[in-house]
């Protein structure tokens, strides 16, 4: 049975796919996609970022500011071809997005913004 407010299919311990930008993959010492384990039943930005930092503590402060907890200015979040960057960190991800991430059919993408020049 799903708890109230929970994302469809999500449960503590669920693993989700995450794509990190190249610099953060190097820093974490990984290649390709990574799997991170959720600790809450609601799929939010914060739930995914907490799971990333829990598995890779060296990424603390690189995606969201250490002091404010806010997304760093040149970091974006995407999934299912939707830009989730400006969603409130504690808002449940849209049902269809959450279902795809939980089912493992789509990854959560952490992207470094493009630079000109």
């Amino acid at each position, binding site marked *: 049975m799903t708890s109230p407010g929970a994302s469809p299919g999500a449960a503590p311990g669920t693993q989700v796919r995450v794509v990190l930008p190249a*610099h953060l993959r190097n820093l974490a010492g990984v290649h390709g996609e990574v799997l991170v384990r959720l600790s809450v039943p609601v799929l939010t930005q914060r739930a995914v970022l907490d799971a990333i930092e829990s598995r890779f503590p060296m990424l*603390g402060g690189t*995606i969201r500011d*250490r002091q404010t907890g806010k997304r760093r200015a040149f*970091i974006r979040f995407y999934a299912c071809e939707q830009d989730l960057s400006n969603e409130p960190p504690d808002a449940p991800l849209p049902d269809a997005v959450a279902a795809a991430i939980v089912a493992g059919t789509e990854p959560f993408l952490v992207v470094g*913004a493009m630079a000109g020049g």
Partner: protein
Amino acid sequence: MTQVRVLAGTRKGAFVLTSDGKRDKWSVSGPHFGGWEVYHMKGSPADPDRLYASQNTGWFGQLIQRSDDGGATWQPVGNDFGYAGGDPGTHLWYDGTQRPWEFKRIWHLEPSPDDPDTVYAGGEDAALYKSADGGLTWTELTGLRVQPSAPGWQPGAGGLCLHTIILQKSRMFVAISAAGTFRSDDAGETWRPVNRGLHSEGIPDEDAEVGHCVHHVEAHPSRPDTLFMQKHWDVMRSDDGGLSWTEVSGNLPTDFGFPIGVHAHEPDTIYVVPITSDSLHYPPDGRLRVWRSRSGGNEWEELSAGLPERDCYVNVYRDAMAVDTLDSCGVYFGTTGGQVYASADSGDSWAPIVRDLPAVLSVEVQVLS
């Protein structure tokens, strides 16, 4: 066998350059942390294989890296650089308003001379941090930022950066652009500005306590009361631990510049790299020159052997000059054009170690026996 290790931080990574004591043939390793800005990298005098590096980008923020094997491998350590005490207060902004302190990056790392696990870090916006556990955790030494003049500190064009840290047992000096030089006599608990004698264009008050754009300060270990400063304009000297300063620019072709160095064995021999002006950050006439004074300033000689004679329009940043401690003192500097130059004879002659690195932000050197 003696080995010399030069640590070069660049705009796109860190490089470790090594040679034997002759310092004529060099090997280059790197880039470490490729693609990241490395503002500074320095080894512990107490354990030369313990290195610290400041790694930063606008995308991913600040990291500190530590090596325990002389730069062969690295591990990220702590990067929690908050301002202690909750509300950090405000400082003067470019438009004359007050603006909250906001951490941006670490400019300088200064390992303790005695303990490899103790290291100090200078931040932007100006703050001094200390780690006593090899960089895993950092504590702000708040006495500097709550110093009464701090709300009046205003960033220079490069930011409100704490870029110089000099450790002399319980006495410490730091320098901040564009606030000035500060001294602590109680290991960083309390601080006072020490800028008497500095005169800065644009500051109407001749006796202004702060507001001076100090670019770099150095002291020879054997003469802790004597400090040499490259200010925005003016090369300055203090012989009373910073309480008063006198200008020693003398016959320099221009007294604008960024780094200043002190010979390892001759405490009155100092080096600067004159830069055309505050609006033309390259050497006069396209000729890269180091100028040396053997009298602690005022009388300077031009050092040119091996340095570019024409068409050279690079800059040399404040932390990009260092000296080694071999009997024939080596002098090193890096340029925004990616060259690292070395002199194995106290500056008499120069040769590039490498020519095509990314813009060099910092240069340090270690002698290993």
